[in-house]
């Protein structure tokens, strides 16, 4: 087994925009994958990580060294596909153990065509990203021309990320029990978010990300949900405009992650890129109204830097760097958080829709 792993481990290379080259071995699919290199400190939930739309176009590094311990299964994906474009780990587990396991992570990556690299010093990589900021990188298992690749890396940009993660036609989810209707602008909605509504009495319609405000208004939804998703929202002017229209119309809106940023932009807020993102399962946020601190799961590279205090109140901030983690709008029925909310958030939004109707 050991011998096989050593012999079969084909060479793979991770090259970063700054010229750093890390040599490891190939796991998952063979080939070349380019993306913004980021790290996540979550110690469990690799399957959820790989299918998290906010990782679209990114090379995801796991700081926890042992990946795939409990195998993979068909229940835990957040989406039908893996969004990460590449996967960087120290070690993958050949003999996973869990009663729900249906296979190992290596096969899973292969099946989803994700190019992976293992047997590298992920801590060293993490420190580079921490010090120099998130940057483009490429994993390749083949021959390559370093200079040409570096040039390509420096020019690389993820485009049309939302289009890539969004449904192309509306998709319906029935409420477990209830009659509310919520529209989701699909920036890459997670399965668990849809469940957050269906469990709380709302039917969900997942709409293509570029659905117009008119269409939404006409369909009689009780509220609109803006989920998390990938990329820099500043460029998504049409969507921002759509959301602004919905706000002006008085539609109850809830935003999470990318949705939180889009909502802020639609209401005159400013955003900025973090030096390196908040990614992991242990981000402390403080509920400013109640003085409570919550440990949250997050995955974002941008934050709301500024919004008029007349427009919205900061409801949460990050305990470590004090950046904005949540907003409560003062004049419109809208609320948003930067982190993955717990069920209470969905219930709050449901009651906001109740008040409206």
């Amino acid at each position, binding site marked *: 087994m050991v011998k096989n792993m050593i012999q079969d481990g084909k060479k793979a290379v991770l090259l970063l925009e700054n010229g750093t080259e890390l040599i490891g071995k190939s796991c998952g699919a063979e080939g070349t994958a380019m993306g913004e290199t980021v790290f996540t400190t979550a110690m*469990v939930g690799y399957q959820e990580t790989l299918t998290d739309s906010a990782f679209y176009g990114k090379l995801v590094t796991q700081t926890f060294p042992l990946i795939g311990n409990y195998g993979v299964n068909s229940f835990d994906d957040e989406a039908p596909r893996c969004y990460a474009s590449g996967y960087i780990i120290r070690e993958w587990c050949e003999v996973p153990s869990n009663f729900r396991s249906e296979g190992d992570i290596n096969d899973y990556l292969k099946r989803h065509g994700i190019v992976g690299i293992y047997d590298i010093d992920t801590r060293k990589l993490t420190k580079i990203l921490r010090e120099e900021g998130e940057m483009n990188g490429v994993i390749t298992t083949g021959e390559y021309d370093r200079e040409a690749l570096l040039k390509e890396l420096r020019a690389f940009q993820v485009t049309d990320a939302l289009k890539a993660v969004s449904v192309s036609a509306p998709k319906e989810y029935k409420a477990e029990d209830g009659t509310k209707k919520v529209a989701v602008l699909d920036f890459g909605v997670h399965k668990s978010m849809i469940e957050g509504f269906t469990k709380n009495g709302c039917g969900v319609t997942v709409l293509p990300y570029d659905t117009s405000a008119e269409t939404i208004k006409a369909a009689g939804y009780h509220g609109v949900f803006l989920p998390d998703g990938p990329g820099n929202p500043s460029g998504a002017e049409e969507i921002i405009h759509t959301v602004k229209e919905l706000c002006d119309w008085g539609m109850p809106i809830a935003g999470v992650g990318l949705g939180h940023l889009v909502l802020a932009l639609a209401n005159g807020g400013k955003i900025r890129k973090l030096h390196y993102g908040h990614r992991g399962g242990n981000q402390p946020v403080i509920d400013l109204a109640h003085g409570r601190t919550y440990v949250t799961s997050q995955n974002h590279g941008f934050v709301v830097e500024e919004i008029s205090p007349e427009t919205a109140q900061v409801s949460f901030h990050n305990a470590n760097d004090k950046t904005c983690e949540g907003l409560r709008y003062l004049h419109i029925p809208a609320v948003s958080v930067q982190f993955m909310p717990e069920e209470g958030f969905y219930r709050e939004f449901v009651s906001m829709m109740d008040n409206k109707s």
Partner: protein
Amino acid sequence: MPLRKELKKVLVIGSGPIVIGQAAEFDYAGTQACRALKEEGLEVVLVNSNPATIMTDKAMADKIYIEPLTLDVIRRVIEIEKPDSLLSTLGGQTGLTLSMQLAKEGFLDSHNVILLGANPETIDKAEDRQSFKDTMESIGEPCIPSKVVTTVEDAIAFTETIGYPVIVRPAFTLGGSGGGIADTEEELREIAGNGLRLSPITQVLIEKCISGWKEIEFECIRDSKSNAITVCSMENVDPVGVHTGDSIVVAPAVTLSNKEYQMLRTAALNIVEALKVEGGCNCQFALHPESMEYAVIEVNPRVSRSSALASKATGYPIAKVASKIAIGYTLDEIVNAVTGTTYACFEPAIDYLVVKFPRWPFDKFVYASKKLGTQMKATGEVMSIGTSFEQAMMKAIRGAELKVDSLNLPKLAKMSDEEIKAGIDPAHDERIFYVFEALKRGMSIDEIHEITMIDEWFIAKLKNLVELEKWLADGELTVEKYRYAKKWGYLDSTIERMSGQKVPEHFSASYKMVDTCAGEFKAQTPYFYSTYDKQNEAAEFIEEHDQGRKRVLVFGSGPIRIGQGIEFDYCSVHCVWALKEEGCEAVLCNNNPETVSTDFDTGDRLYFDPLTKEDVKNIIETEKPYGVVVQFGGQTAISLANYLDQLGVKILGTQADSVDAAEDRERFDQVLERCGIPRPAGHTVFTAEEAKKAGNELGYPVLLRPSYVLGGQNMIIAHSDQDVDEYMAIITRTKLENPVLVDKYLMGTEVEVDAICDGTDFVIPGIMEHIERAGIHSGDSISVYPAQNLSAKIKETIIEYTKRLAMELKVIGLVNIQYVVYNHEVYVIEVNPRSSRTIPYISKVTGVPMVDIATKIMLGHTLKEMGYESGLVPDAEYIAVKVPVFSFEKLHNVDNQLGPEMKSTGEVLGIAKTFEEALLKGLIAAGQNIKVEGGVLITVRDSDKGEIIPIAEKFADLGFDLYATSGTANKLNNAMIPTNVVSKISEHKPNSTMDILNSGKISYVISTSAKGRSPAKDSVKIRRKAVEHGIACLTALDTANAVADCIAMHKTINDVDLVDITKI
């Protein structure tokens, strides 16, 4: 909320002596607590009976009482000191139980003392079995079907409704004392009966046995604002059924998917919220391996062994944060000391794997039952950190100092497949080695899993090691193979042995930092572990922070075991403090997660790694120290001296050659000859025949022991050829590398001296005398400072001999010498040119900070400079009596008769103006049941039958009824001491020794026997029975005599003044 304004003076209760289930982790927690409180400007009053602790140090508290931990004493301390608050959750179960009793009886309220850390409701909800169950049910957390019972009959009746097997868990006992798994009614009767007796409230829980489920723990912290986090998850390699203290544990949990992990994390947070815990809390769960079903096993709303492990595993200082919460702070106000920029209200992310491996005392107790169950048996543990499970496991195995450097246990090679299979279940101390051997022999992962219920994940990882070792042994040792083996934690020497080839290169370890955040933030903690990557964070850190100070490495003492306890941690930590004071950069190396020395801010840097030659060499390559210190880390550190010397590393203090001269029998004889000091006559032998010849030549009794030993390992007094045969048979089971020493046994007064020497002058802070005559290990003897019965001439001789030995051995620093005074002659028994077990207590009672002075001497200072004259320091105004503490109730089948082999796990100190008063304090602190009436059962060996008479007379005069077996009874009755005759067990007659012990009439047992050890012997059964019933069992006549004198004072603890040692 910031610091509560009304707090000015806090009382902290420690956990007392080290016993199985309550060890050094509470010194670590208590020390952190004291520091956290002092940081806030609060005055700290400390009570703890354990003198070997760091928390009882003047630097740690403002008022320190080394006094028995009883309600009476704590009440008196409160009356004297008038603290405004009491911190209850940092002193283990002992401190917590005392605090709760004081709160419940209203004493705290009536003295205006605020209870900090836990309230009685929380504790009751967590510890009283029924209210715990009710609380869990009220928040929808599942418990295991169980019932609290107070009689054996109820236990049986309930069990019949849920079916065997069941687990018996006594309420309010340490480390699950008295618990066990019962498969049959007969077993249930025995275990439940025992458990009811041990439970202070006569209550046991009968619980459905869920052996084989995964055992998962979460360490949580909650504050008064309901902020709550989980610091760390842990998974036991051994499934439910083995006490977590006896399990191999990994952190974080590895076989849980995100769903299961979040389910249990949420449950843990719900529990701490329901219990309203303010501080640290340990939640233990059983998780069904094939479903999402789980059950809450146990909740400990205080810091614990697990919280110490979680702190070291993550870098998150749980005890410190818990203390700050107790005095009013909330998690979002407490800065994470590791990063300096983030807050305590976050969950650590780790980027490595931690393995904890227990250390059991079975090397000392060859007849003890090694089966592991719900009652903890380990005395200590090691922790290791690696980037893979394989690497961490290999480090843990060699770090445990079991004389193996891999999972191959040599004795297993000869066993049959059936024997190996039988050895993998039920669990015992060597199970992991049997599992490894089974894998080597081709047993499948599934089969092993089915038998042991150890998760396949762990077995598969062990199989990786099996495969690697096969690969190493097969063909050329290529660089690729070598590097793979290094990454999986193998030493060069192990690789060479397994491959039969020289390593092709030397791959030096690099170091990574433990930073609580997986590299997300820049950390300031200089806490490292070794691995095999290219980037060496320690080297980078050193370069970045270099201020040109002298770098000194201090080696710690590894896992706590009998003979090497917390006292060496005290010494190592003090050495580090002294080095820092001297402007050096002090770097600690140790692998024991329970200790203060492995707290990341004790030294300037910490290396959490095993203390083997190669591990140490790697650290030296990175640190490039000015010098190293080996004399404070017990045998673990001192045994590195020769190797370090060969490497050309500068050893500060006494040189390796002197260590060798003191340990090598022939060289030591020459030393004594040159010094003109007599020692008991003796020989070195290798075989039983030679040993018997020596015994006859010297004349029995003789003392037999292997050379190079620790804590009198495998040491006996032989009275006959048969004894020699039995002993040699046991000792030659393993290959003899060093000879066995046979010495004439001199039954004289044992005297012990710790001295400091700078090469020119020497200082003896005090001479200690043992109550028991030679023959009982010094660690198990009651030791008195200052010596009470030595003539001026003998003292002068001892001072002179100490001087000669220190000079001849060129001691620079500390030396410990044991003498025996026999027929007015002083003989040397043993010289240890290093720190000893008595250093902490002698430093505390004499006021001579021995480790600090020794450390400064190593750096070139002289005693004269520090104001010390050569010779004996004048006696202090108090008498201090050190009393050993044993853990016999945790270890079945261990003979509790004291002898030359050390058996105690800890110690306490009694300090008073007179010897008897100090002894009384010591005995009470040690938990001895000092009764002033009742019966005394006497059964002594023939050679003691003369000497027992005056002692028996003392007890008779004090009004005790005497009982003895016929031989002893005749002797006593003839001497006009009325004694009742009881029959021997072997006579199978009524009114036997067992009957009288069971009758409740007996207050003391005085039992000595020529031969002991084997649990089948009558004498051993009597002594074990005494242990079970909590009857004071005196196994040396000298102890019995001293106890009689103590009772004759007609004083209780309340008649003896309490002493604040900061005023000495």
